[in-house]
């Protein structure tokens, strides 16, 4: 039934379709000034994270016993810590750690959650029940507590933090994708595709998945902020990165003893975490204002 011309047309249409929504999106997004600034910040941060170790003014691990706990100055932009290490350099390397941990955890959770959500929503029946019940069990632990429990189980360390954060993200993604899948399933064009004999995978990928994309994007962005807070929180509690690592949370924890006297040790890493999470949240808000249909129709 599909003649060559129809296939060609749909391919042309697909190219055209891909072109204008993206442009439309960019036009609206540009208007969100806060989100735009935040995106630039994150862009710069990512660049710093990648080339950071090479441009850092000092070796983040090298102590300098002549310059202990010095406040911010021209030579040490963020001061030095209790071992004389340059805080600014440590912050730069810490950016890499934070971004890497949160991105991995969230994207792994996204992939796993999406697969589970699609399967659950599309096939329904007992598969759906099993997956949703498991998510309910995971949901019955508050996020951070679940992460703490997992790390308590597996032992401290950055990798286990990634696993823990990933695990507590999966149920939310699964539920989101499942909901969107159920909605999309109702759509008539899915029925149409199925009646033309499209295989399950094809229907899932080509028809249902695109519907869920905008919600996912917003959620992922906000989730990265949550992940950074969780990861640094775990490290602060001594359950994550080890103290020599220049991870922002751990830096805060070791700096705690010097709060009254050299508070910059505590203030600097905190600012780093705060600004980064703030930036992701602002981007998420901006995306939501642009992509959310309820707001669009006003």
């Amino acid at each position, binding site marked *: 039934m599909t003649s060559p011309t129809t296939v060609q047309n749909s391919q042309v249409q697909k190219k055209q379709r891909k072109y204008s929504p993206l442009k439309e999106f960019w036009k609206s997004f540009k208007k969100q000034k806060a989100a735009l600034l935040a995106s630039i910040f994150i862009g710069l941060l990512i660049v710093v994270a990648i080339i950071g170790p090479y441009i850092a003014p000092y070796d983040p691990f090298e102590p300098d016993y002549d310059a202990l706990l010095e406040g911010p100055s021209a030579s040490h932009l963020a001061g030095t810590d209790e071992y004389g290490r340059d805080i600014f350099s440590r912050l730069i390397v810490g950016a890499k750690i934070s971004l890497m941990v949160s991105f991995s955890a969230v994207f792994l959770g996204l992939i796993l959650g999406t697969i589970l959500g699609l399967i659950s929503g599309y096939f329904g029946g007992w598969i759906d029940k099993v997956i949703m*019940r498991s998510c*309910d*069990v995971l949901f*019955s*632990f*508050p*996020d*951070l*507590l679940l992460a*703490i*429990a997992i*790390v*308590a*189980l*597996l*032992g401290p360390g950055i990798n286990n933090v990634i696993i823990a954060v990933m695990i507590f993200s999966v149920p939310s993604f699964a539920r989101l994708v499942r909901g969107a899948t159920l909605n999309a399933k109702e759509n008539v064009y899915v029925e149409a595709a199925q009646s033309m004999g499209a295989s399950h995978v094809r229907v899932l990928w080509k028809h249902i998945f695109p519907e869920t994309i905008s919600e996912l994007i917003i959620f992922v962005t906000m989730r990265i*902020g949550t992940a950074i*807070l969780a990861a*640094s*929180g775990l490290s*602060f*509690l*001594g*359950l994550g990165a080890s103290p020599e690592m220049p991870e922002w*949370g751990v830096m*805060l*924890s070791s700096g*705690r003893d010097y*709060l*009254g006297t050299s*508070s910059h040790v*505590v*203030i600097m*890493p*905190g600012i780093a*975490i*705060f600004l980064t*999470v*703030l930036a992701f*949240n*602002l981007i998420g*808000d901006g995306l939501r204002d642009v992509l959310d249909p*309820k707001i669009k129709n*006003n």
Partner: protein
Amino acid sequence: MWKYTARRIVEMIPILIVISILTFLFIHLIPGDPARLVAGKDATIEDVENVRHELGLDKPILKQYVDYMKNLMTGELGTSLTTGLPVIDMFKTRFMPSLHLTFLSMLWATLIGLMIGVFSAINKNKWPDYFGMVTAVSGISIPGFWLGLLLIQLFSVQLGLFPTGGLDGFSSYILPSLTLGAGIMSMIARFTRSSMLETLQADFIRTGRAKGLKEHSVIVTHALRNSLISVVTVAGLQFGFLLGGSVVVETVFSFPGMGRLLIDSIAFRDYPVIQSALLLFAFEFILVNLIVDVLYTVLNPKIQLDS
């Protein structure tokens, strides 16, 4: 309402069972031999076997679980490996402070969050809105442990207004509850704002104005009453955030509550305490969710009559 409550409780039971199994298995899921981990690296084989027998780890696993559940029912939560005290006694002293802290935080966060949210919604895109929303988005972005430390630095160390930690009367609750509530207040403010904005678009709001009602009547009696239902449920769900956040806050302020107990026991590998604490937290969370669900059906007249 009672039928619904009963139904939800019944639905809860399988989840509770699964959770009890998971917390029971906790000690077994740890990589390595639990008896050895508890006995320590320098323990002899004999020591390890003694520990194994003491903890009942030498019995078949099903029997262990049955014993575990039997003990739970009678409130026998085991003995702490570090203090040697019954776990349940340790909980008794720690539970109330945490509860008070959680309650206080929730109270101020909900009230202030609501106010900010409503005020922002009715002044959309004007200065009060920007101010409110900037505060709110900062509140959800700020790490709790950092905020706590900053507050200590400012109010305890420099101004000397509040104690830096511990539990010493009501003033010990102030800074921790400010820290704990910040994130919640922000989330409630954001949610209230969007809920109010949506409600204010509704037709019945126009009807209210057409009736000649004063604007504050329209906002409070009509719009807020509607939004309140969803805001209350969202607020209730923040409770989970509180439980997790309390671990961090209690650590920062050296507050003698359940959260800090959990962290300390993880550091010392006090498995009986860890297990029971996790179980307690999960149970609290599920209970609050149940209450919130039932509360929602009570508040929402549409659902009231359907069930």
